[in-house]
């Protein structure tokens, strides 16, 4: 008895540590060796407390292992790391569990999406969520799948929406308490977007919030006729969560059709907005619309970054948001109060923001049959690429496209179920989504950068400039090291205080994912997807 009891306790402790409880998700700062959610923590700062890799030793980083995906689709996934096991998606919707120290796979879950799944911008997936021993995956044919994290076996698989109507799931789900929350992509197909929560155990829908205000919803008067039925406002990036307020925050996409706004007069709520939803009920607490009546496809699909700042001398719970429309915003995440708004890149569509943060539009900058030149271009001043906030430096870091424009054309448009519903086309010198192997456009056509802003003023503190644009997320650490990449295929460690390059390596493929860091044993690792592979680095251990 006396011998067995400690053993039992030990076994219990082991099995408890293997379970990713909702309490563990609330306190990732207690286990910085892991990466438990898409952005590393509910506040989505993509900031890690790991500090073995420093400003002075980062030059000793070297490759540890490579996972080569059995897929030619774009690798946009952020992996999860739980107690030495890495979980990642292989585009579009396979799931792989592997040893985070060696890269050796434990199992592969092979998912075949419906061949009718048509997605606007690549057959991609951005990652997973975990609760207990269960992984959650959203698929491009709009299903939510629960997998046993130990074996990859399917526990349940439910339809979220009808993929034949253009719905898809692209982002890593958000787990809050006992629910899994996802939103629907498909803003280029005339969908009516929504965010829905599912019981993590059963897959049963718990609540649903329509991101296009329908009859009876507040905000419905911002639509006319039946345009709301095809109003878009898609969701394709993971939201954030404030446990104290019990609010989840989601960035919403463009109204449909993208470039012919004539068929949808009004502000088109809640397109291009951030919405604050009660995590238990899905009830709308507040919304803030960045781009009313969008004419350029300026989705507000960015990561809502939650930070607690000293604001004009008093502590304030804020949300930092560099928007695709070219403005940087600070909102009070409790009240939705607009605190600051300032362009962070060249923009020509707005004369500025009013005292409520509403843009003052410049006349005649919408798409036209002869084409209208607008800054920023269709991909925006930034986009879905994760920014980072470091509480140590107090700086907000933005993957930036500067001096970038498109010419926006408008066409007549007719809705056909499940077909593209665009109403126009933008044209830019810089390729929108994918790296061309050869880059010969001039710097005058735009460039990519990491920009460090002081969030209390919106002022630029430093910039690391790249020749090509960047679709890479940003990671910062407690040792003031910033990791990021770019379309060219370089992966960098920068000094988070100055932007100086500490280390770089060429991975040879477009980086269109966010870096993470984790620890196994005493080694701190950094992982990033580039091209069709995931690369993992750590400090050189041999002299």
């Amino acid at each position, binding site marked *: 008895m006396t011998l067995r009891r400690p053993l039992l306790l030990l076994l219990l402790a082991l099995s408890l540590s293997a379970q990713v409880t909702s309490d563990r998700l609330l306190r990732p700062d207690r286990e910085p060796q892991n990466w438990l959610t898409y952005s590393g923590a509910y506040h989505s700062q993509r900031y890690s407390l790991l500090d073995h890799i420093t400003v002075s030793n980062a030059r000793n980083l070297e490759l540890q292992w490579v996972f080569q995906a059995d897929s030619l689709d774009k690798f946009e996934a952020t992996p999860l790391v739980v107690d030495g096991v890495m979980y990642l998606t292989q585009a579009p919707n396979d799931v792989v569990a592997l040893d985070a120290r060696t890269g050796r796979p434990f199992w592969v879950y092979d998912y075949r999406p419906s061949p009718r799944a048509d997605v606007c911008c690549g057959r991609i997936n951005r990652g997973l969520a975990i609760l207990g021993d269960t992984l959650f995956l959203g698929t491009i044919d709009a299903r939510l799948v629960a997998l046993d994290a130990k074996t990859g076996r399917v526990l349940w698989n439910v339809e979220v929406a009808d993929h034949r109507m253009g719905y898809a799931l692209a982002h890593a789900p958000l787990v809050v308490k006992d629910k899994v929350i996802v939103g629907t992509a498909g803003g280029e197909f005339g969908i009516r977007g929504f965010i829905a929560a599912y019981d993590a155990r059963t897959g049963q829908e718990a609540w649903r919030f329509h991101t296009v205000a329908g009859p009876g919803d507040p905000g419905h008067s911002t639509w006319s006729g039946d345009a709301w039925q095809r109003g878009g406002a898609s969701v394709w990036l993971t939201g954030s969560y404030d446990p104290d307020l019990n609010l989840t925050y989601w960035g919403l996409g463009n109204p449909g059709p993208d470039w012919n706004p004539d068929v949808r007069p009004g502000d088109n709520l809640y397109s291009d907005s951030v919405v604050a939803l009660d995590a238990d009920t899905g009830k709308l607490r507040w919304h803030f619309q960045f781009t009313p009546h969008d004419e350029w496809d300026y989705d507000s699909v960015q990561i809502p970054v939650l930070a607690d700042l000293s604001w004009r001398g008093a502590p304030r719970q804020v949300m930092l948001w560099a928007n695709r429309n070219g403005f940087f915003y600070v909102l009070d995440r409790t009240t939705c109060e607009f605190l600051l708004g300032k362009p962070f890149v060249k923009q020509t569509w707005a004369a500025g923001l009013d005292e409520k943060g509403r843009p003052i539009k410049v006349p005649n900058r919408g798409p036209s049959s002869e084409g209208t030149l607008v800054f920023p271009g269709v991909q925006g001043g930034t986009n879905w690429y994760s920014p980072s906030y470091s509480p140590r430096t107090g700086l907000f870091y933005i993957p930036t496209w500067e001096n970038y424009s498109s010419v926006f054309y408008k066409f007549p448009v007719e809705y056909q179920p499940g077909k593209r519903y665009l109403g126009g086309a933008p044209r830019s010198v810089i390729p929108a989504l994918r790296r061309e192997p050869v880059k*010969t456009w001039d710097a005058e056509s735009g460039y990519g950068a990491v920009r460090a802003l002081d969030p209390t003023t919106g002022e630029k503190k430093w910039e690391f400039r790249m020749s090509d644009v960047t679709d890479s997320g940003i990671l910062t650490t407690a040792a003031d090291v910033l990791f990021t990449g770019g379309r060219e295929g370089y992966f960098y460690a920068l000094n988070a205080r100055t932007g100086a390059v500490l280390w770089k390596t060429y991975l040879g493929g477009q980086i269109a994912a966010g870096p993470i860091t984790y620890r196994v044993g005493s080694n701190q690792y950094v992982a990033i997807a580039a091209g069709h592979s995931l690369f993992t680095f750590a400090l050189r251990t041999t002299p």
Partner: protein
Amino acid sequence: MPAANRTAAVLLLAVTALAGQNLPAGATINDVEAGARLFRANCAICHGLDGSALPAADLRRGQFRRGSTTDDLFRTISNGIPGTAMPPISLTGSQLWQVVAFVHSLRNPATGAGDAQRGQAVLEGKGQCLSCHRVQGRGARLGPDLTDIGAVRSLDYLRRSLLQPSETILAQNRSVRAVTRDGATITGRRLNEDTHTIQLLDSQERLLSLLKSDLRELTILTTSPMPSYQDKLTPQDLSDLLTYLLNRKGQ
């Protein structure tokens, strides 16, 4: 070109192309117009209104890696190209066929009004074009290869290129001038560039890749190294040369 003119031009192209052999058998102007609308709704977002937006998949060339026949294009559009940004496009059979008809019509059908044979003589003789350009394996590589220039450039554009080269030169044909730390000057045509390196074909047609950190100076010239032919060619020479170039539509 304004879109209204462009549409007119595209439709004109389409009409003219009907006379050529590019279209699927039996295609009518109505098919091409319907195809243009479908193309605008489904394809222009990536390919651009005139099919020229993706350098690696310029639809005006009329030649495609996955096959250029009507059947090939039909299959590529309906299946997509796995591992690329090209998705399967779900259209009915007849709609797909109309899109194919439109894509075929994008190929510049203009052939010019001069004498192509005389034009070739101008190109090879007094124009000295082959000292920089290459046509079907003959000539230098310092300027753009002209083998299929007639498929992708209009008469107007080619004329302006010959008369005002610096105003029409495309970014992909820029010349560079680099000075190394030890003072050597390198000139050539920029082939590729990133934050830390630049790749070029130098004046001796060597492929060079330079680290920017090794350079004292790097200038991307926005002017064209090509002289204007305004005063070098007679109007008849110019017309003949343009006719020759317009008929360079690939192998």
